[in-house]
């Protein structure tokens, strides 16, 4: 007889007196391995995000571009850092009125408010952008949950809060940069 404790999200196995010592050892071993994996890793994982622009002509990072992420999970709280750098040729900023989105390494808890309208979704981090062709063109902003698997970016551009897209806060081109940090409850 065993029962499972699932509220913790770890799915630990509890034992009863009916169990033999052999079973106890086995389950104890499994439980400790799960705890070790969940807590002890301090595992820093790499993740390659995808840049997109739903429903519009998507952007293309071009040749020799960089897009990368790192994340760590504290039980169900996900810390995720990422950045991208457009390449040096064949860059496409995309088109249309829809915003840039970036994928998450772990889906966000569905209880969080996700929305495709700026200001309507949960704010889960902050970001910075740089137009490499203009030394003065640095921008900062916030990160908003766009869906359970994607985030979008909001920036104060010319004193107007705007969603980052192909021409906001500047027209994205070779070498331009975007970096972000998010913290959100994820699905285990």
């Amino acid at each position, binding site marked *: 007889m065993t029962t499972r404790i699932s509220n913790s999200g770890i799915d630990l196995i509890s034992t009863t007196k009916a169990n033999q010592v052999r079973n106890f050892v086995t389950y104890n071993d499994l439980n400790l391995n799960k705890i070790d994996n969940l807590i002890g890793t301090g595992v820093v994982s790499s993740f390659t995000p995808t840049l997109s622009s739903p429903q519009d002509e998507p952007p293309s990072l071009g040749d020799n571009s960089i897009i990368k992420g790192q994340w760590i999970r504290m039980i169900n709280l996900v810390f995720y850092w990422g950045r991208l750098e457009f390449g040096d040729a064949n860059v496409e900023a995309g088109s249309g009125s829809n915003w840039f989105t970036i994928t998450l390494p772990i889906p966000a808890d569905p209880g969080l408010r996700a929305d495709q309208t700026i200001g309507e979704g949960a704010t889960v981090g902050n970001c*910075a952008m740089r137009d490499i062709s203009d030394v003065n063109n640095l921008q900062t902003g916030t990160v908003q949950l766009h869906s359970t698997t994607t985030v979008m970016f909001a920036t104060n551009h010319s004193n107007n809060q705007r969603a980052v897209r192909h021409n906001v806060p500047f027209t994205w081109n070779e070498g331009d940069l975007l970096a972000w940090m998010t913290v959100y409850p994820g699905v285990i």
Partner: protein
Amino acid sequence: MGTTTTPNLSLIKPDLSEPIPNWATQNESNCDTIDAFFSYTETDYSPTWTGTGGNPSLGSGGSISGRWASLWPKLIRVEIQIDCGGAGFDAGSGVYELTTPSTMNAVMDASESAVRGFIIGTAICIDINSNSNSCTMAVRARSSTTIGGILELGATGGSTWGNSSPFSWAQDDRISLYFVYLEA
């Protein structure tokens, strides 16, 4: 063989040949190890504030205070407050940096080039003489042991945090910031 250990936390796992009386001791040790990861202890430290062209120095009554805590293995949260102080404050020159309490993991992509390092936190800069100058700032990984800032200044464009950005730092100005990074 009576026990093996888990690869990350070295939790003790008895096998069938381990005497049962030892289990209580091993279980207690495991519990203490696990418990420690759920504790939260703030530790004071003294960040060093530098400028690439000359270091700022605090004026009368000024202070720099830092506190950090390990949220999880390798995950460090830091908060820093600076009060520039009064008479004698010198803003120094160039791009500002503050030291971290420990070395960042290389995966944070620290870079002196703005936005080529990860964004790791946020800050508010207070011009004590002009509310309209006060603004928020993104905190960035600038080197493995220092952080810097990135400012957005509306239509006029942004800059990195420095002696004249987002305003000319002067007596009694303040900054408060936090950041989270992966430790080496």
